[in-house]
């Protein structure tokens, strides 16, 4: 058996890559591209998807995925595969604040059900839904590796641990007051 390990091939490479993203976004993606061997630009696809998702209010569109494919010389289907495989990419619009609540075993033992119930009641939505004003999305996630602080959730890049209904309220209060970017 002969073994092969080659990057995806793209015959119709785009030449005008500077037209795909803003200079800031390109600089950020290029920082990741530089980490990998020159012929393996596609190794930066996960980072690129995250960067454009963050820039787009937290979710991806097909147009954005196609642009990432063009930028990294990948077939679009290869980018869709990645975007649909990993749970942190969103393919539909999400709220400004995505609350990722862990309900896995350690959090469950420590009362994550009460936290979910409290969040659902306060926000008036169920897991997997977004509030009408577009401020909050509630998402059930698998273990986030912070079981010592169970129950916990993640909002944006931040972990919040040892949650109680009171703590949840104060976190959400401060996010609601924060109207700026």
């Amino acid at each position: 058996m002969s073994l092969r390990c080659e990057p995806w091939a793209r015959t119709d490479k785009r030449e005008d890559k500077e037209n795909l993203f803003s200079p800031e976004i390109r600089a950020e993606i290029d920082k990741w591209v530089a980490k990998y061997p020159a012929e393996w630009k596609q190794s930066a696809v996960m980072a690129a998807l995250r960067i454009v998702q963050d820039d787009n209010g937290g979710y991806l569109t097909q147009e954005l995925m196609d642009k990432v494919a063009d930028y990294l010389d990948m077939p679009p289907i290869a980018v869709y595969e990645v975007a649909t495989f990993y749970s942190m990419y969103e393919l539909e619009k999400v709220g400004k604040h995505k609350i990722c609540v862990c309900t896995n075993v350690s959090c469950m033992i420590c009362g994550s059900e009460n936290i979910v119930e409290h969040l659902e009641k306060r926000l008036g939505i169920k897991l997997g839904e977004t509030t009408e004003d577009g401020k909050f999305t509630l998402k059930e996630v698998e273990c986030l590796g912070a079981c010592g602080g169970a129950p916990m959730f993640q909002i944006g890049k931040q972990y919040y641990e040892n949650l109680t209904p009171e703590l949840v309220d104060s976190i959400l209060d401060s996010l609601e007051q924060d109207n700026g970017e």
Partner: protein
Amino acid sequence: MANEVCLRTLHLDRPWLLSSYESEGGYEALRKILTEKISQETIIETVKTSGLRGRGGAGFPTGLKWSFINRSAPGEKYIVCNSDEGEPGTFKDRDILRYNPHALIEGMIIAGYAIGGTAGYNYIRGEFWEPYERFEAALQEARDAGLLGENILGSGFSFDIHAHLGGGAYVCGEETALLESIEGKKGQPRFKPPFPAMFGLYGRPTIINNTESLASIPDIIRRGGEWFRDLGVENSGGSKLFSISGNINNPGVFEIPMGTPFSELLEMAGGMKDGYKLKAVIPGGSSAPVIPGEQMMELTMDYDSIASAGSMLGSGAVIVIDDRQCMVKLLDRISYFYYEESCGQCTPCREGTGWMHRVIHRIENGQGRPEDMDLLDDVTQRIMGRTICALGDAAAMPVAAFIKHYREEFQYHIDHKKCMVGGR
């Protein structure tokens, strides 16, 4: 005798800084190797002597793994660190990245030197943003100090390390899925052989080790393989980080010698909370077979002792279950996890995890059928050993163990359409 290796900077003010690490003997091992030109064979032999076994869960001897690589093969050879910590109950590598990232960096450089490596990648799970930033900052500190990059400390040896961020997929903790993921693909495990030591990242010889394994290396070199080995017990050298969680007073990460009695660990973690009694323990992450509490109180925290009870030490993630908990409900959640995280590549796992979850879920919800227990036995048997990677086994093992030890709770759910515990 706690926090002697990976967490040895923890008592300091800002433990993650280079200056903190150096004040605790940090980078002494690397300096010694480079100035005394210690041979690759000597380093690998020292790691073998230490008895260090893979801390990610599989427990494979680290030194032996390193010896599999053809060090004189031309071209790139990689060290990949697995910081894709995702086994439910495990949260130790996060603390290494946050509080002592330099131990990992030094360990990766030494590993790179020992296998003739050219570069290293640290695969950090995507949700770990704070640990990722700490790690990047530490890399920069190391580069600025001439400890990382071109011509390290003027020795002629060059090695650089890059961080890679995941995107949320438990299966990427499987080493070949992790490699696929770095290559910009879906994280689906590869067939083995060929093993990564022959054909790994980008098709090049690659060694993949867990964060804690690599962070243990500097002290093994600095203080000797025997020193590390003698911290622990036979077959389980060294100390180990245990992540202990559940309904206890002081959950957290404890770095203690292998062979420490579980009862002592539970005491360090503050004991049971609110007067509830110990019912059961999952000793090594959610895929490790559950052990009844009474039996667990007699065991010690090392590979052989936990194996003697039919379970495994795994990643050292100890989930403490109190007597309020319904075992059917817990297994319902655990089985959902594996169903959700199966990559879909192998039929027994893709279909079997769904079957197991649906059957357990209906038992939990009072819709169990008389034949369901046999059905579960059958499905677990048909998954075990029939998949490319260990996720299939990881999904089936907890089901088999929960039923083995708590069959009467499942049967009660089926017969009475309600729970034995707490009158639900």
